[in-house]
């Protein structure tokens, strides 16, 4: 009499916790090492932060925020700052879209067999523009353009041009080649091929990238001013520096409302457009 065949596959031990071939184990080990090294090397002042003293000064600090300054003339000032922030972000994005499009052309291979000699160099330039944050650009531009929203606008434009240029180049390269090839076969020059075949195909995508960056730039423009580049941020750092805590609270409130409004608008727009 033979035993019936086992219903289940033979019992196996679970894999060992650490195995030299297990990539997830190495990843976790490296991550833990990085975290421990970070906390160890930073000498964070937790004692100071969680002490009674710090709690008291935090409480006093927060208490000074109340009541927020709601006098009409200050509210007008805050409103003007908000408008300045919006204008900075919008203008910066428009400039960036124009510059991005100009830079995207040499950064993309327009058709098969296009030598695209400047492609590598332009992409390098775009990456450099992109990897320096807006705030650092603003701090650099303050030297040339002086304090005020102009430096902030240009900083947004430069950083965003890097981001958009790269996205635009990808969009142009991925456009369906058919219409362009048809025109090229008729002997139409490259400028008109781009204007009448490539651009109409990618325009919706370019618009959606630009709007998305605008949304990001509103958020960035709100804080850009803390280095002195205009908008709500400049008001904030000015009044915070002078310890006008009531006014600071109003400006912070305006910033949060602005960011929330942008979030709500973009969420609703996305809902409506993708339905």
């Amino acid at each position: 009499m033979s035993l019936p065949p086992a219903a289940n596959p033979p019992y196996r031990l679970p894999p060992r916790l650490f195995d030299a071939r297990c990539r997830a184990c190495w990843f976790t080990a490296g991550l833990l090492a990085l975290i421990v090294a970070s906390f160890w090397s930073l000498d964070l002042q937790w004692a100071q932060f969680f002490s009674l003293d710090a709690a008291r000064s935090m409480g006093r600090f927060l208490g000074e925020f109340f009541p927020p300054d709601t006098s009409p003339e200050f509210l007008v000032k805050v409103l003007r700052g908000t408008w300045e922030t919006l204008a900075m972000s919008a203008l910066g994005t428009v400039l960036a879209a124009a510059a991005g499009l100009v830079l995207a052309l040499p950064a993309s291979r327009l058709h098969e067999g296009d030598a695209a000699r400047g492609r590598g160099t332009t992409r390098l330039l775009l990456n450099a523009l992109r990897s320096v944050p807006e705030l650092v650009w603003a701090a650099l531009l303050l030297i040339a353009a002086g304090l005020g929203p102009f430096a902030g606008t240009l900083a947004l434009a430069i950083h965003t041009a890097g981001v958009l240029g790269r996205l635009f180049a990808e969009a142009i390269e991925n456009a369906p080649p058919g219409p362009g090839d048809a025109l090229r076969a008729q002997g139409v020059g490259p400028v008109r091929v781009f204007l009448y075949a490539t651009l109409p195909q990618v325009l919706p995508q370019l618009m959606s990238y630009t709007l998305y960056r605008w949304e990001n730039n509103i958020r960035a423009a709100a804080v850009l001013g803390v280095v002195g580049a205009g908008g709500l941020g400049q008001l904030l750092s000015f009044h915070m520096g002078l310890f006008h805590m009531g006014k600071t609270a109003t400006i912070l409130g305006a910033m949060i409302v602005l960011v929330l409004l942008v979030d709500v608008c973009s969420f609703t727009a996305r809902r409506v457009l993708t339905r």
Partner: protein
Amino acid sequence: MSATLAPRLSPPERDPAWLGRVFWMGAAAVVLWPMLVATEFRPWVFFERDNARVTGQFLASFWPPAHDAEFLLMVAREAWRTVAIATAGMTLAFVVAVPLTLMSTRVLSVSALSGRMAAGPAVLRQAVRLLLIVLRSVPELVWALVFVRVVGLGPTAGVLAIALTYGGMLGKVYGEILESGEAHATQTLLRNGGSRLQAFFYGLLPQNAAELTSYTVYRWECAIRSSVVLGFVGAGGLGQQLDNSMKMFNGGEVFTMLAVFVLLVALADRVSAGLRKALG
């Protein structure tokens, strides 16, 4: 005389859409003009004599980049501090985000298994969501400004700022990822008497682990970028040194630090892209 009567065979020489084009350009000008005024858009300030001279001197001092051993050692130390601030901030953000996510995820609701969620848990979940939105919508730079006042200059303010803002972001996105997936396995576990934590660890987490990890790695990359920016308000790291050198118009040092920063971001970009690719 006959030339005027002959039918025109050549295409129209004027652009047929010119009216629309002129209109839209006019409309754009009308919208952009107040913005140009509001942003004090005056490109010619670049070319004013004094301004151009100062800028020229600053740009000229970019070359040669500062490269003495002592300075490079300092830059390396500050670059590590930047990474460390980002990593420590992300760790704390993770610690903040995980419990809030568990509290706010609708999939883990027991009462929602049979019809509507009970009122108490629904209110709790909405409250936690609101907290996450508030944490997330205050920019980290503002948190840093506040914390610099409380704990003084140094990396503690930067770590706390990243922890709060990124905690909100991670919590919100984790919640969205967990709720977007197929909830069947989790709900089956709950229906058969598994606890909520068991349902999370054996149903929800294995399904979404790759996506969650990949988003966390992406956020770590963003945290490195923002920890440089936080240095400008005095939260330590590369940004603080960059700010100091800029204020002293020391172009060579600025150039070296910008280059190190671009390399750092590129490296983080590579590492994060590689990890995300490995996760699939």
